[in-house]
């Protein structure tokens, strides 16, 4: 599995297809986050923006390898494991990107509530931001897994479905990502730092289920 992860990571890195979502994320943050803004608001925005980026990274990882090359790897390790490696590499990349963004945003933001009256402890805010970011990375991975090969193959269906699902996962009540982000935003109003463990657990559960379904389908769908 380590060799497989190393191969998939090298494939992603060397293909340079990670660059567009990376730039998009930086642009998102450049527009939405400015120094001196309330820390929890900015962290909520940072986490929410990561969800479509994670989904896009999954799309890159699952489409990066030409089908014939994927078959060679699938014969060696089994198609389910080959696909699992794709998803894990995408998730890890999104998590690393989100962690870096969260740390930067925490450092440049104002450690205060939305009305700048109550002080917000920075380490606790950073921890809450990291948990929310991870929840969004997980849910974005689930969205990407469910809207790309092996479930949807043609880009004409996969891309709109992925964008719509990513948008809905951020805004619809009941989604773990929405719960994590709104937890940060409402926490910012009162100046209390939330601990979004429940949304994280929910996101992990959804992602595990999506991963299991898509990995099981890899050997049943046409390449």
């Amino acid at each position, binding site marked *: 599995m380590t*060799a497989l992860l*190393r191969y998939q990571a090298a494939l992603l890195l060397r293909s340079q297809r990670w660059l567009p979502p990376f730039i998009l994320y930086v642009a998102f943050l450049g527009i939405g986050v400015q120094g001196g803004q309330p820390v929890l608001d900015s962290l909520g925005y940072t986490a929410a923006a990561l969800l479509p980026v994670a989904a896009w990274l999954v799309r890159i990882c699952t489409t990066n*390898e030409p089908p*014939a090359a994927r078959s*060679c*790897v*699938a014969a*060696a390790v089994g*198609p389910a494991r080959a696909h699992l490696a794709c998803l894990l590499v995408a998730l890890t990349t999104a998590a690393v990107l989100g962690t870096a963004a969260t740390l930067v945003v925490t450092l440049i933001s104002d450690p205060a509530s939305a009305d700048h009256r109550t002080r917000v402890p920075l380490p606790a805010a950073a921890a809450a931001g990291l948990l929310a970011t991870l929840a969004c990375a997980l849910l974005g991975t689930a969205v990407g897994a469910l809207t790309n090969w092996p479930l949807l193959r043609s880009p004409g269906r996969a891309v709109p479905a992925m964008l719509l699902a990513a948008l809905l996962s951020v805004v619809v009540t009941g989604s773990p990502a929405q719960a994590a982000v709104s937890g940060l935003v409402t926490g910012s109003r009162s100046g209390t730092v939330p601990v979004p463990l429940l949304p994280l657990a929910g996101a992990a559960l959804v992602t595990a289920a999506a991963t299991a379904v898509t990995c099981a389908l890899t050997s049943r769908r046409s390449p």
Partner: protein
Amino acid sequence: MRSDLRLNNVGRRYGIHGPWILRGVDLELAPGTLTRVDGPNGTGKSTLLRVLARIDAPTEGKITGRPRTAYVPERFPQALPFTAEAYLTHLGTVHGLSRAAAPRAAAGWLARFGADAYARTPMTRLSKGSSQKVAVAQALLAEPELLVLDEAWTGLDEGARAELERAVAERTAAGGAVVFVDHDPRRLAGAPDATYTVTDGTLNLRTDKPTSPSGPQVSLDVQGPPGGQLPAEASQFLTSSTEPTPGTYRLTVPASYSDVLLRALLTARPPWHVVSLSLRTDPTLDPLDDESPR
């Protein structure tokens, strides 16, 4: 412990209401056997090989056994962001080699197929034939227990085609199972243990196997120890063997198996002595001895 791959009444179709591509396939691939699959285009040969390599799961029926498998697709993509060497090193470790052994195996196989000059060339700049060499090398790197070749010879130059035949001979001699599809009837002629034809999604064993093998043969005159028995690895691949005088044998093998036979004879304890060796390209001109090899 090697495991046989066994297909039991296997069927495969894409989609819930798609047409059956394969139906009612029973097949067993034992270690050390060479299996050929024939059939016209679009009859399900590639699907069968994908099921055998366990890339595709059967829609119905059962498949048992999980040998370490390597697969060569009929067309290998150039769109990979690696050099040939880097790709093969990655695939070597994916196939289970250590990080130290993978680059050595990669260099060795590239050299065997005459592609060592392209080791540091990006895959995107390789010709079709060169990238097919990479695909073949990828499969042979880690000495798989099951080698699945889907028209792997297509696009290879003459030297590489012969080398791949010898590599297949080595693999079966070492106890691996090999299954291949190829449209050239002379491919490994006389060597397969079984030939199947896929027609309309069903698999039929070809029983009209010609009694005298076609394709180039190598015949060897060898002397063995008095009362000696041919090594088992050697006798496995013979198309014929006669004993003109006691202790002297004339052995015939498909040309791609000559190295395997020589290695078996020369490394036997006590070793055999090779007196002469000759290549016969057209066996019909030189009727083979009728003594059955197996």
